[in-house]
């Protein structure tokens, strides 16, 4: 060990090396301080989205101060740095157009707040819970537990549907009934189901909308409301209940029918009935 101590003592530290070491230490300390500050800020009462923004901002401020201090240690004038920043921005802007675009889009998203952390959103073909809104991207956790990273620029350009923005949601169930059915009776059965289901909101009132005459059925839209938390429960329970209730009331949910017609000028198509149980010899 003694030889190592002697060797270190013998090294003559130049002023430049000392400055570089100081700068590196300051930056490292800046990182540590920013991390500690982000975690320890007492923001528990705020909304997770606001917590995220304030923590990020506080972290960037601390890092900025550390960086400025480190540059000062290296003898770089801050005035010169700030002056060069303009030119640098142009250069970086050209080199990193996509990143800068994402960055600016991220700022817009944070200010506009079309959704916040914890909301469930749908963007293009991805649907999931917002896990974080970063400067460059938004991260979603899908319902099958996959992480989807969507660049902020895409978020700004796409149609974003926030599924949890409003406290209640409507479920539109498409249901077809046979042409022979009495639509008034069908309506009564559907309304009774909505009335009996406790998670189906009484108001806004359930709706039955006549959608049209389909190929095999009269198509109806049965619209019912639920709170966003109970939406999936309602979606499952009401469809099961409709099927059960239609069966009980003898209301037919038809499947596609095809009629074969050979035209009026020809004879009917011959139909041959084959016995259900054929003898082994006939096979």
């Amino acid at each position: 060990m003694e030889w190592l101590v002697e060797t270190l003592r013998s090294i003559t530290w130049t002023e430049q090396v000392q400055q570089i070491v100081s700068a590196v230490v300051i930056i490292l300390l800046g990182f540590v301080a920013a991390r500690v500050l982000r975690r320890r800020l007492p923001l528990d009462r705020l909304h997770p989205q606001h917590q995220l923004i304030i923590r990020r901002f506080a972290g960037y401020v601390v890092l900025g101060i550390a960086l400025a201090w480190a540059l000062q240690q290296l003898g770089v004038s801050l005035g010169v740095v700030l002056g060069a920043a303009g030119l640098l921005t142009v250069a970086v802007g050209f080199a990193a157009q996509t990143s800068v675009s994402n960055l600016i889009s991220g700022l817009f998203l944070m200010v506009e707040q079309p959704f916040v952390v914890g909301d469930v959103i749908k963007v293009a073909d991805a649907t999931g819970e917002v896990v974080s809104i970063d400067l460059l991207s938004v991260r979603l956790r899908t319902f099958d537990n996959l992480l989807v990273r969507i660049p902020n620029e895409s978020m700004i350009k796409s149609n974003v549907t926030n599924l949890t923005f409003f406290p209640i949601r409507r479920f539109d169930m498409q249901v077809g009934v046979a042409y022979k059915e009495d639509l008034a009776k069908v309506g009564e059965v559907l309304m009774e189901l909505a009335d009996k289901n406790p998670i189906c909101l009484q108001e806004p009132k359930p709706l039955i909308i006549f959608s049209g005459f389909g190929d095999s059925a009269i198509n109806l839209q049965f619209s019912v409301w639920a709170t966003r938390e109970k939406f999936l429960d309602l979606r499952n329970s009401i469809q099961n209940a409709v099927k059960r209730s239609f069966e009980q009331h003898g209301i037919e949910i038809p499947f596609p029918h095809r009629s074969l017609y050979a035209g009026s000028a020809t004879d009917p198509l011959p139909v041959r009935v084959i016995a259900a149980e054929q003898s082994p010899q006939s096979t």
Partner: protein
Amino acid sequence: MTAFSQHSDISKPGSVDRAQWWGSYSVAEKSVTQWQIGPLTVGAQRLRGEWRIGHQSVDDPLANTWRCTSGLDTASLEQMTNIERFAISGESNEIRLEPRAADRPLVSRPDLPFHVLPGEEVTLYVGSPLWVAAYSAADSKALLEIPSHRPSDTWFGPTTGEGELCYASRSFCRLVLDEVPRRAHRAVTAVIIRNPIQEALPIVRLKLPMEQLGLFVSGDGRVWTHDVILERGEGTEFAQLEIGEGAPRDAPGAEQLVDPRVRPEKNRAVRAFSSLFS
């Protein structure tokens, strides 16, 4: 004597003869005791280190039954649709049942169009289902709370984005107390509506702040809530809400059973008669 001082030792099998369903019960170890409170059936079993409680409801919200049966076997509990277990230390085999008012506002919709004429003051009697809260009687630890009948949800507010989640009920808007049926699992709220302005007040819906109402029991065994006084404001959809202090006006000697779930807000303007949905 407090409202919950009733105690029944039901360590022996059979029916328990009691006027009210709330109060303390001693339950024999391993056997099942079952309470039928209107449409709700609750069963409790005391096992070593735990309470096992089951419950289920029938569809009829107006079923008027009150019965307690002890000494049943485990199968009677296992038949129930919802069974929960509660770990608890100690040897006490006492369970206490308490009534509670609904945990959200109740929006009552008259079965027929109802109008309060100008300058009139009327008292409507509106019924609402009670919640049944079960406690370990020895240390008052809450076991569970279940509605005797789960009313449907409804939304009450000016838009689908702004408003409040409530329970829905239909009301006959009875004006005569004797016409209000006495049911073990329902409470009656006397709603005093004042219409001081020169225009009839149509009651499309009536929102009652159930979570702000305490419960009382009158001498005849009827369960009451605090009175609710609503005074229509002029040129506005809002009404001045006031919650009566002390026993209900129609049952002055009633004994208080439980306090409100949340502290009542005094004299505030509320949207009490209608929302924009119609």
